[in-house]
């Protein structure tokens, strides 16, 4: 099984080579994003004989934002070799709280946004404590809390309805221009810093080898709780963006994010076995999934077949990733 590339001493790789191998999954995610973007533009042009303009790109960005946030939160948990299925319930809850309680006025909007993020953090903390101190499997804990948060969301907003102030929509999901890209830039910068903090390094360490991390003095339980708290907060933020985009609330609209957030993480090149990957890839994955729906639309594909192509695309993308990783000699 050992090839020449693997037995070669570490130093003999140039910095560029090393960087390329380390970032191969991220690069693949960005290449898929670029390819999907080109496909979208081509199909759009073929249908309408013009290029997608400000309106179209704005709509792509705004519809992607909730998934971007849910996916980034999911990424942090997946990096610790966990899984957070409760993001769907948390998005429902955040969405419901925003739609029922938020009024126009800077104080109400800011106050409720912060409160919703706190609720997200609290929900994440429950997951984290049960995983870290309860010694339960993440998939089971978050399966149970998904049900709990979904229930609370229906309690808050029994029927679709409610409204978020128009100013709030303008800030988070401005319909007149892709200003929400600011938040994407913000996530990229925060991730660049996070990766270099003690917390970020510890998250990767746990994902790579929990026992080794513990032996090196990483406080595994605390870090795991922190990862779930962050995931809960990002899911709550996703719920706020969803409320801003749809300008109203629906206590079940977050449910799809359980699966799409995992799909975004996978397309972003983050390893399901923990410790490998970059949340910027997840952001790319979220945009790919949104663009895919547009591509299918402009390719005149019956919307009923939408999930068929989404499922097929997910599997093919992962197969492609495995193939490329084997080609560049990076295992896993």
């Amino acid at each position, binding site marked *: 099984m050992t090839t020449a590339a693997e037995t070669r001493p570490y130093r003999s790789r140039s910095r560029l080579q090393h960087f390329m191998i380390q970032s191969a999954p991220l690069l693949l995610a960005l290449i898929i994003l670029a390819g999907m973007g080109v496909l979208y533009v081509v199909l759009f042009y073929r249908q309408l004989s013009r290029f997608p303009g400000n309106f179209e790109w704005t709509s792509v960005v705004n519809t992607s934002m909730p998934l971007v946030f849910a996916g980034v939160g999911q990424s942090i948990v997946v990096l610790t070799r966990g*899984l957070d299925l409760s993001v769907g319930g948390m998005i429902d809850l955040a969405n419901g709280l925003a739609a029922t309680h938020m009024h126009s006025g800077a104080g109400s909007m800011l106050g409720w946004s912060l409160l919703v993020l706190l609720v997200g953090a609290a929900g994440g903390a429950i997951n984290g404590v*049960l995983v870290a101190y*309860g*010694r*339960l*499997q993440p*998939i*089971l*804990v978050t*399966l*149970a*809390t*998904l*049900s*709990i948060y*979904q*229930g*609370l*969301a*229906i*309690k808050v907003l*029994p029927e679709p309805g409610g409204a978020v102030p128009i100013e709030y929509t303008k800030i988070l999901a401005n319909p007149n221009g892709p200003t929400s890209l600011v938040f994407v830039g913000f996530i990229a910068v925060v991730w660049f810093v996070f990766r270099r903090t003690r917390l970020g390094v510890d998250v990767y360490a746990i994902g790579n080898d*929990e*026992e080794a991390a*513990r032996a090196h003095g990483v406080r595994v339980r605390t870090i795991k709780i922190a990862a779930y708290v962050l995931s809960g907060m990002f899911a709550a933020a996703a719920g706020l963006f969803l409320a801003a985009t749809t300008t109203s609330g629906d206590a079940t609209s977050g449910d799809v994010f359980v*699966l799409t957030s*995992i*799909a975004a993480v*996978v397309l972003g090149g983050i390893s*399901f*076995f923990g410790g490998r990957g970059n949340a910027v890839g997840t952001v790319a994955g979220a945009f790919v999934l949104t663009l895919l729906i547009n591509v299918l639309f402009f390719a005149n594909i*019956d919307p*009923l*077949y*939408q*999930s*068929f*192509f*989404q*499922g*097929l695309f*997910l*599997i093919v993308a*992962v*197969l492609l990733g*495995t193939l490329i990783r084997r080609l560049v000699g990076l295992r896993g």
Partner: protein
Amino acid sequence: MTSGAESITAEPRWRQLLAYLTPDRRRVFYAFGAAILVFVVGELLHPGFASAESVKAILVIASFVGFVAAGQTFVILIGGIDLSVPWVLNAAAILLVTTSLGRDGRAAQAVLLTLALGLATGLLNGVGIAYFAVPAVVMTLGMNGIMEGLSLGLSKGLTCSSCASYAPPAVQDVVRTDVAGVPADLLLWLGITIMITFLLSATTFGRRIYAIGNNETASFLAGISVRVVTVALYMLSGLFAALAGIVLVGYGGQATLGMGDPYLFQSIAACVIGGISILGGRGHYLGTVAGSITLVALVSVLLAENMPDWGRSVVYGVSILFILLLYGRERRQL
């Protein structure tokens, strides 16, 4: 550590029993205990809840979860998971009614075709996971989407002319008629339970499943064809999801869209309540049977309580957490 040879010859009976009750076997008893507890609480809250008729009705509904969870048990035992069950089940239900058109004469071939569909999707899942190293979560998630798209697309959103057909009376009878006072469906479940128990405990195939679940590398080195077994287990999972689809359409009469959705989380929860470790290698289908009954009985109690939707959802989640904390915990590390 008991001392010397005399303790082997003169082992008290209660100690033999204790040795037989390994933690894994004890969990099966806990799970049945939980099921009985739910029925007792239900009877206290609503006299008549534990009557024969009510128990029979609950067991029939539990059998649907039990069928799906049988397949889930197989894949979880090797540390995998099957997220494709909702739409494999739904596609199976649609295929059954559209090919049989409600006629008994076509029932047999429709049932066989439907079961073949389950096996085929399981084959694809298994090959992707075992031979192409796609993570089980991703492969089966993608397959769920593929089956959803195909079901919706080919049946035009269940508006096709044959989509409104009923299940053949013969299939409906399996669920609805009683044989010697017991619904035929429960006899089917009993038969399947005995077969799976035999398969897991008394065959080399069963021993291989546990071996792979405990240590895949060691199993490979011991000469087990891990990939072939993996593919076989995902095929079984597909088969049981399709079977659940057939039985469910026999129970309800017609196929509906989204009829498989509740069965994903319920099948996983039934396995876990039954003491099957999500990491693989530990647990037994008998536990899953108890888990399915516990789960469905719990939901029935909550329904009888007239609890609102949101309350049911919360209690459901809290109960699963409670059961997990009781016996689903992993060993302490360092």
